[in-house]
């Protein structure tokens, strides 16, 4: 079990005055059987009242607007979250052949998690990956899911700037490179093409050095920017399995889940529209520290200082790295 205090700061600097800015954020950590969100506070500059609702995936969405002219907007989300230990990996009991018999039923039950989306189409170029994952699956359904994740991890290069926030998986398939958002989308496509219902998970990966703050370990973590994305797949009979194709390692108590959806489009941490012709610069910072740990140690570690986004970006959505 791990406890963290997280501060997620998103700042927009505009070249000129903008107004009538309407925004929605999915920044409150999930509160469910896998993790508990103990406290959450959202503040904005300029100050604005927020209203919240739950979306169809049970994510808590906060909305606010700033009507008057402004050149700067800051959204700060502070949360304390408790990550429960992961359940043991599901046993490899369901064969792919047995899975196939349930496939139609799963499609009907979990349509949204199996169907192609704009970010996650089902291109023929991935059929080879599906076939290869089958070969490495030992004929088992959970084996297929793990093999697919390993394949994506092994065949694609992690490279910031290789793609952008609105990239569909086509961009990565061409360059064989991307960031965690792309890795997650590609894995989703492979799983869904084989009939597995799967979620895109938006969240944080807390670096090891933050977890072991006292040891000042400098271990590098892929996706050094703490904003992260991975996948949860439903393996009938075995339950939900979390897979991190970027990290290539098991999803652990270092993974903090913010929101679930079909793809990035459902869970963008911050998105909005505004009036005005000014361009914008976006920066994202996530601060994390373990809280209330057994020795009472507290140490702030800055894990992410988002680099300026490519100038073409006008959407005001941070890409998940």
């Amino acid at each position: 079990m791990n406890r963290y205090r997280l501060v997620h700061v998103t700042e927009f600097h505009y070249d000129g005055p903008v107004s009538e800015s309407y925004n929605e954020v999915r920044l409150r950590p999930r509160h469910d059987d896998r993790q508990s969100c103990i406290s959450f506070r959202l503040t904005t500059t300029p100050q604005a009242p927020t209203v919240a609702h739950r979306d169809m995936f049970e994510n808590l969405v906060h909305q606010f607007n700033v009507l008057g002219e402004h050149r700067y907007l800051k959204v700060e989300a502070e949360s304390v979250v408790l990550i429960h230990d992961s359940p043991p990996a599901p046993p490899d009991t369901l064969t792919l052949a047995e899975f196939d018999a349930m496939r139609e039923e799963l499609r009907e039950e979990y349509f949204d998690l199996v169907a192609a989306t704009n970010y996650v189409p089902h291109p023929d170029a991935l059929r080879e990956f599906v076939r290869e994952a089958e070969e490495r699956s030992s004929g088992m359904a959970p084996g297929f899911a793990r093999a697919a994740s390993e394949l994506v991890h092994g065949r694609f290069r992690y490279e910031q700037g290789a793609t952008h926030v609105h990239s569909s998986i086509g961009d990565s398939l061409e360059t064989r490179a991307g960031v965690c958002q792309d890795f997650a989308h590609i894995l989703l496509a492979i799983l869904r093409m084989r009939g597995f219902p799967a979620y895109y998970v938006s969240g944080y990966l807390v670096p090891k050095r933050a977890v072991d703050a006292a040891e000042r370990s400098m271990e590098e973590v892929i996706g050094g920017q703490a904003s992260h994305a991975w996948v949860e797949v439903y393996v009938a009979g075995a339950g939900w399995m979390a897979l991190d194709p970027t990290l290539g390692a098991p999803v652990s108590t270092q993974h903090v889940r913010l929101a679930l959806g079909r793809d990035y489009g459902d869970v963008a941490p911050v998105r909005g529209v505004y009036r005005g012709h000014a361009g914008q610069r976006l920066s994202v910072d996530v601060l994390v520290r373990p809280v209330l740990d057994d020795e009472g140690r507290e140490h702030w570690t800055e894990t992410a200082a988002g680099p300026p986004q490519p100038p073409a970006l006008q959407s005001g959505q941070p890409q998940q790295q």
Partner: protein
Amino acid sequence: MTPKPESELPALFSGYDTGGFYDEMFESPGVPRPHYQRLYRQLSYMGPAEFQERREVADLSFLVQGITFTVYSDGRGTERLFPFDLLPRILPRAEWDQIEKGLSQRVIALNLFLQDVYGSQQILKDRKVPRSLVFSCRHFRREMMGLEVPGSIHTHISGIDLVRDSRTGEFMVLEDNVRTPSGVSYVLENRLVTIRALPQAFQQYAVLPVDDYPSHLGRILRSLSPRGGDAVVVLLTPGIYNSAYFEHSFLAQQMGIELVEGRDLVTDAGIVFMKTIHGLKRVDVIYRRVDDDFLDPLAFRPDSELGVPGLMTAFRLGQVAIANAVGNGVADDKAVYAFVPEFIRYYLGQDPILKNVETYVCDRPADCRYVLEHLQEMVVKPVGESGGYGMVIGPSADRATIESLRQRLKSDPRNWIAQPVVALSRVPAFDSATGRFAGRHVDLRPYCLFDGHKVTVAPGGLTRVALQAGSLVVNSSQGGGSKDTWVLRGES
């Protein structure tokens, strides 16, 4: 009456042939149905020149009033007169009562379906309609899930398209329109113009009035106000380039409410305001004629210039009522249409009073195979369009059209349905080239208002007529015209 020899037919009807179709006016050539006898007698005294003159009076009054519509995908200027045929379509009372009952039943079932599908989804759990069909509908709005709408009303205004099948003489439902159906302004205007152009004929009949539609709609809209009392109601239009802009301004004026565009409204922390010269004024109810996609750039298409950012937030918070509700397109999807009879049985425990046209849902592999083999014989429609856009009528399509359709259908079967060609009934329409009446195919779009308890149907509705000889396409966007529709207080 027995059929008369053709030489005895009045001049306007000389050579008139029912062509083997159900003719709304004639049982057989020269033998009008009982409810058309008075009109027939009137017209018998009238020569082509006089009728032509009356027609011109009618056209002129449409022109003077600026009653126009716009055809998209047509280079020839934006606005056009909606062609009007002066000979009314008449429905006897008993037949109308049956239609009204059927429409009421259908609208209530559609509303219950929307309530369910955005609520507990019991009908999906009970497997009466495939979840995949609902969730793959482009107009299914996940943003509506779990959202409670005022009075549980989703379908405040519906336009249900009916056709009479010549084989059986029965009315059937061709499609449902529960998003932003248009055309009711023509119902009201057609009546005024018909009374002016055919006063004697109109006086021969006791016709149920249609003119209280705007006040009834206004009452329903005001009743939705979250604040009660003096509700501020506005009509939200996409603006002057929209095909139905005339109707928007007409209805706003008739109801005495403000006609606004997206830029006239602003939301703040979930409250909607209208910008006025006296400052911001809170808005309680929006009769929107803007499609879901464009309604709120924060919730839907971010590039929309027509909408109001934050409108969905206000709607979700119950601070503003929106009619029709968001997400209704899942109920009038043409593939979902095939399941409406099932909705009626499932939610109401009743048999449908109005039948559906037999429909092949291409999302079902067996249906798709059948359709691909019979394209040439069927009417094939994209599921999410209205106004006849994208529709292909197999028997009159050329080879290239059929082949291109086949490819599109194969690559996205969910997007298509097919129906056998229905032999639509006909009504005489005046052909100015010959100076005589000729049979033309018609449909009927009645307008239904739902206040949460009761469905009120404006008597009659818009009779749309395919003015080209032989054509089955009645949509105004596809060259159709319209007629006044008279529902009689009695049988004739």
